[in-house]
Each structure stands twice: as structure tokens, then as C-alpha cells.
């Protein structure tokens, strides 16, 4: 027989043990969160430290003479003359008159390599916008080549990357730097241009527009279909084996690897309906298939969370089932549905795998202007740049990841905000 005092002792002893267990458990939780945070911090610092350089790009200042005879254009309004014009000669002659002592074919090639090979076309665009400049001379900043850009940035940091540079090129850059004729500027090309094989000319505008058109179509299709399906299943459908079967299937679909939807899209939309490859239409259709289950499941949860008293009150006032749902349940469930839709869209925005199958992984320079223009999307653009041999694409890749992440953060925050703002609690 134990005495009551002993029992109290036992409880006291176990109390310290139980307190210790609780403290330990709290610490496990903190450590788990710390590991998660550390992973996020490592990811972000890695991406930002690699990618921040891409937001600035090297420009070189030169006196450019728009010589009518060299270009071979007399009439600035004649498109045929403009197309045949020798535009590359303009930046080349500007370089030659800047560095007059350079002679010999080999050295001249090194000299011309200072500037981006799109410089001639950029000057053409400028001249077309200001035809009066023809025959004039002006001092302007011209985009430098990506090798020069990489070298100049690393040179400023004190660890020059010179593997692709010739000695005389390094000397010219030092001269330009001392004269103040070379500098880093904000890289507006990154946000205004489509893809390019030249890192200094490459931009993500094309990919952003492609993502935009694809997502608009996805939203237009998946939201109405998903919400209708959810309302029917939740409010009208009888509860029997068939609806159970459908529910299990929808949950399964949500877990199907996304590449399968790509294969499905390839077989149905491209091979059967002959929708062209690589266009936002087919991308939007495939991503609709992928996001539908997510939207149906979240919408059903939102409808379920509307208290039955609301329905009963409406029915009690003589409203029909249809009126109850449309006038009372749906408006109250809408914030939850919207949150689900935004999360579904964010998922679709970051998706690459299904798009690989339907040709949206392509080199597309022209910025898509509609649903039927060939396009690629942001994550695919990242994938393509990560695969490119040019060194300067490494920082471009990280910069594009930063843009994609900021879109995702905006979408997810707005989902949280919408929920906080609109959700009613009972």
C-alpha cells in the first residue's frame, strides 16, 4: 500500500519530467522553424547575390556619325532601303574614330567586339524614330557586349574575369573607364525585350506576356467551371456512390504529376484538335486541366464552411434552392473560392513540366501580342537561360527567378489579404 504522500511526490517528480518534455518539444519546433528559415535565407541570398548584377548593364559612350554614304540610306521612309542599310557599320566606324591607332584585321575584330552585336540595329531604331539625325553626329551611350559587361562588372569588384578577353580589350576598357566613357546603367532591356541569344539584349518581357495570356485563359476557363462543379457537387448532387466516386477522382487528379496533363494536352489539343504548338491557347487549356481539381476542392471547402443556418433561413423565407445558393451561399463562399483560385493560378504560373510537352519551350524573340502568338512563360524562360552556355546568362537566370518569385509572393500575399479582408467568421 502506498501512502498519499508518496503519490504527491510521484506527481511532483513527474511534473518536472513533463515540464522538461514540453520544453524539449518547444525547442524541436523552434529548430524546425529555424531550419526552414535558414533554407529560405540561403536560397534568397544565393539568388540575389547571383542575380542583382543583371539589373545593371554596361554602356559605352561614343561619338556616332550617321553617315548617309556608309549606311546607304538616302530616304528614311523607304522600308526596303532601311532593311538593306549597312547598320553594323555605324557603331564600327564610331569605334574606329575613337581608337584611331588600331589597325590590322585581328585587332579591329577585337575592337568591334566591345559593343553588342545588336548595336547597329539599336542605332537604326533610334534613327527611324528621329530621321533628322541622318548625316548628323551625336554622343550617345551604346550597349556593350556581354563579355565586356561580365569583365567590367568583375573588374569593378576587384576580381576580373578575363578568360574571354584579349589584352588590348582590357587596355581599351581601362582607357574608357579613366575617361568616364564606360558605366553601368539600369538594364531596361531586361524588362522591355523578348528573349535573345545575346545576354545583353535578352529580356523577360516576352515571357511575362506569355505567362499573362496563358494565365488569363486559365482563369477564364478554370474558375467558372471549377466553381460550377463545386456548387453542384456540394449543394445539388445527391450523395450516393456515383458522387463519392467523382469526389475520389477529383482528389486523385489533384495529386497527378503535372507532366501527365502535358501529355494529355499533346494528345487531345495538338494531335486531335490541331491547335498549334507553343501558343498560350494550348498552354492555358493544359493548365486549366491542372488547376481545376485545386479550384474545385478549395471551392467545396469554402461552400462547406458557410453555416447551414444561412441556408435554412433563406429556405424558411421561401427562397428556392437556386436562390439560396446564388444569393446567399455563393457570396459568402466567394472569398474562400477566390483564395483557392489565386493559389491555383500561382501554381500554374510556376509550372514548367506540362508546357514542355506542348512546345512552349522554344526560342521566341517576338513579344506575343495575343492568345495565338507563339509564346513561352517565365519559368520556362528561366529553364532556357539556365541551359545556355554564355556566362552572362547565369546572372540573368537569377534575375528572372527574382522576378518570378516576386510575382508569386504578390499573388500569395493577395490571397492571404483577401481572406483576412473578406472572410466572415461565425
Amino acid at each position, binding site marked *: 500500500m502506498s501512502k498519499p504522500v508518496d503519490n504527491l511526490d510521484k506527481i511532483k517528480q513527474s511534473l518536472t519530467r513533463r515540464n522538461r518534455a514540453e520544453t524539449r518539444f518547444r525547442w524541436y519546433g523552434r529548430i524546425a522553424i529555424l531550419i526552414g528559415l535558414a533554407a529560405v535565407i540561403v536560397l534568397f541570398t544565393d539568388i540575389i547575390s547571383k542575380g542583382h548584377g543583371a539589373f545593371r548593364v554596361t554602356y559605352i559612350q561614343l561619338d556616332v556619325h550617321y553617315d548617309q554614304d556608309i549606311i546607304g540610306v538616302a530616304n528614311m521612309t523607304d*522600308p526596303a532601303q532601311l532593311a538593306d542599310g549597312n547598320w553594323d557599320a555605324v557603331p564600327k566606324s564610331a569605334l574606329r574614330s575613337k581608337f584611331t591607332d588600331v589597325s590590322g584585321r585581328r585587332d579591329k575584330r577585337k575592337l568591334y567586339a566591345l559593343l553588342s552585336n545588336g548595336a547597329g540595329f539599336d542605332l537604326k531604331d533610334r534613327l527611324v524614330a528621329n530621321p533628322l539625325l541622318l548625316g548628323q553626329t551625336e554622343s550617345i551611350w551604346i550597349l556593350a557586349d556581354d563579355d565586356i559587361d561580365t569583365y567590367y562588372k568583375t573588374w569593378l569588384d576587384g576580381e576580373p574575369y578575363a578568360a574571354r578577353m584579349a589584352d588590348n580589350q582590357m587596355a581599351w576598357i581601362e582607357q574608357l573607364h579613366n575617361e568616364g566613357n564606360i558605366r553601368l546603367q539600369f538594364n531596361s532591356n531586361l524588362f522591355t525585350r523578348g528573349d535573345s*541569344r545575346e545576354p545583353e539584349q535578352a529580356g523577360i518581357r516576352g515571357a511575362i506576356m506569355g505567362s499573362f495570356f496563358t494565365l488569363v485563359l486559365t482563369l477564364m476557363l478554370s474558375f467558372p467551371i471549377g466553381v460550377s462543379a463545386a456548387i453542384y457537387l456540394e449543394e445539388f448532387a445527391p450523395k450516393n456512390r456515383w458522387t463519392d466516386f467523382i469526389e475520389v477522382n477529383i482528389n486523385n487528379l489533384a495529386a497527378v504529376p503535372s507532366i501527365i496533363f502535358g501529355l494529355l494536352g499533346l494528345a487531345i489539343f495538338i494531335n486531335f484538335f490541331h491547335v498549334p504548338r507553343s501558343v498560350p491557347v494550348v498552354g492555358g487549356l493544359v493548365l486549366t486541366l491542372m488547376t481545376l481539381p485545386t479550384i474545385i476542392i478549395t471551392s467545396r471547402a469554402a461552400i462547406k464552411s458557410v453555416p447551414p443556418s444561412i441556408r435554412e433561413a433563406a429556405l424558411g423565407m421561401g427562397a428556392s434552392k437556386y436562390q439560396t445558393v446564388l444569393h446567399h451561399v455563393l457570396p459568402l463562399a466567394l472569398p474562400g473560392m477566390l483564395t483557392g483560385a489565386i493559389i491555383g493560378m500561382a501554381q500554374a504560373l510556376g509550372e514548367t513540366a506540362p508546357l514542355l510537352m506542348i512546345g512552349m519551350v522554344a526560342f521566341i524573340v517576338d513579344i506575343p501580342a495575343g492568345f495565338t502568338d507563339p509564346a513561352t512563360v517565365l519559368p520556362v524562360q528561366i529553364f532556357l537561360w*539556365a541551359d545556355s*552556355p554564355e556566362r552572362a546568362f547565369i546572372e540573368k537566370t537569377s534575375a528572372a527567378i527574382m522576378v518570378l518569385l516576386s510575382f508569386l509572393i504578390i499573388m500569395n500575399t493577395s490571397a492571404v489579404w483577401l481572406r483576412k479582408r473578406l472572410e466572415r467568421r461565425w
Partner: protein
Amino acid sequence: MTQRTILPALLLTVAAITATSAAMARDSIEVVGSSTVYPFSTVVAERYGRSSGKPTPKIESTGSGGGMKLFCSGVGTNYPDITNSSRRIKMSEFKKCQTNGVTDVIEVHIGYDGIVIANSVEAAPMQLSRKDIFLALAAEVPAAVEGELMDNPYQTWKDVNPALPDTAIEVMGPPPTSGTRDAFAELGLEGGCKKIGWIAALKKTNKSAYKALCHTIREDGKYIEAGENDNLIVQKLQANPAALGVFGFSFLDQNADRVQGAMIESVEPNFDSIADKSYPISRPLFFYVKKAHVGVVPGIKGYLNEFTSERAWGEDGYLAEKGMIPLPVKERRAMAQSTRSLTPMTGNEALK
């Protein structure tokens, strides 16, 4: 719009967009095919688009085999106009093209690409022969008795060849789906394999056994499939100076401060040695054009002219700048002429 019409209206809009897109004719060129040729054809496409002011060709990297399959599926704007390839078209593919109505195919040989075996600049440079490569990486190697095989027992480079360093064999390279892997097996491994007398004799008596022996890479972890991304291999080599990596020459060219190419049979992989074919592991690059689409899809002729111009594929052209090794000048001129005159393949070429 009332609630009654909103859903059908949305769905109708989408259906209309889809239907018009399916019925529309293409106004831009569609190119598919090899991931090795992709970096070169994209540059040409971009230059062509900017200088002509016409829509820039769309280029999809599907791999040589995948591109050929799409290309040979039929004639019409639903099928690609051009396919890139890091090997010559096969007889079976050519026949498939013919049966699907793609009768006139223009073949354009554009240049060469070298495959390099590289390691980190922090390690000592390697001196390999193709025989070393075969012995180090094949699944089965000749045993002491002639005509007999054993599972590859070699653990270090020194086991393979006493002149090589005493480091464990660790090679990162592309997976079997890659054209680079096929070419590496054919030019690197098989090149070393047939140096062994009785195996070379086997080619005549039992070709499939010969091919299985010479092309099969070991799977015991010494050869690591590092995915299709060559930048990743470069990064891994930098982190691990003991390892070697297999990738295309253009990646070596761009990362010369991080990795160095191994000399193969005392030849260093560089621009000149690949161009004059003294570097043994190099392969030809091609693209194929559907003649029936010329004039139907606008711009094909302009794209061909740009690709075969000296400023593009010449020795000082912008493709050489990107790491493509140009054809010798005579071949280049002949090829440019036959391409510009749209001369199709006759079917009598010596295809495999």
C-alpha cells in the same frame, strides 16, 4: 451581362479563340530538333528577324531524334519546316519522311561540334587516349584471355593506364536521351574500342554484339548521369576537382577560367584542332529543310540565306563566336550554293 449568360459567354469566347488558332496559317518559320544546334540556329533566327523586320523563326529544342520524328510526320503548316540535327539523317528516318509525303528534303551541313572531357583548372590536366576512355567507362572490358569479357573492374585511372594519375574514376556526363551521349559513345568509346584487334574483327562477324560492347557505358556509379544541363556539370567539376565531365566545346569555351579540356591522343580541344579534324571526338552538325514549305511559309529562303552567309557561318562569323566550328571554305561554298538553289537529297546518299 446577367448571371444567366456569363458562363456560356466565357466558354464561347475561349472556344472561338481556340478555333481560330487552329484554322490560322502560320506566318513564322517553325524549327525543331537538336539541342546542340539550338544555340547556333537561335542566333541566326534572331539576326534574320532583326535585319529583315519579318517575324523571328520559333525554335524548339526537342533533340535530334524527336525533331526528325516531328519533321517527317507530314507536309503542311501543322508540321515544322526545319529540323536541326547533331547527326546525319538515318535511312529509316529518310524513308519515313518519304512515306509521309515529305519527299523533297534539303540537307544543310553547317559545321562541327567538339565533345570535350574536362576537369577543374585546380586539378592537373588529363592526357587521355580513346582507348583509356573506353577502358575506364565501358560496362564490359576485354579480360586477359583474348575474346573474353569481364565486368569493368577498373577503379582508378591508374588501373586503366599506368601513366595516368592514381585518382578514382568519376565522370559526369549526359544521360542516354542526349545526342551528346550518343556522339560520345560513338566517337569516344567506340573509337577506343576498335583499337583492340579482336573487337575490331568482331564488327565484321557480329555487328550487334560489337555495338553493344562498344557503346554500353558502365552503370556502377563511376559514370554519373548529370542531366542535360551542361552548366551544372561545369559547376560540379569546380566543386570536385577529382571528377571529369563530358560536354560540348562551347561550354568549355565559355568557362575557360573554371575548367580545362583533357588532351585526347595529345591533341588539345580548341577551335583549330576541331576544324581540321585532328581532335578525334567531333561530330558534324546539320539541318534539314522541307522544300514543299518554301514559298508557303514566308521567310524560309531568307533564313537559309542568312544561315549560309559568310558573316554567319564563316571563319570570322558570329556562329564561330558562339563556339560552332565552321566547314572548310571549299565545302562551305559548295554547301551554300546547293542550299540556296534548294537542291533536295536524292536518296542515293550513303545514309546509315
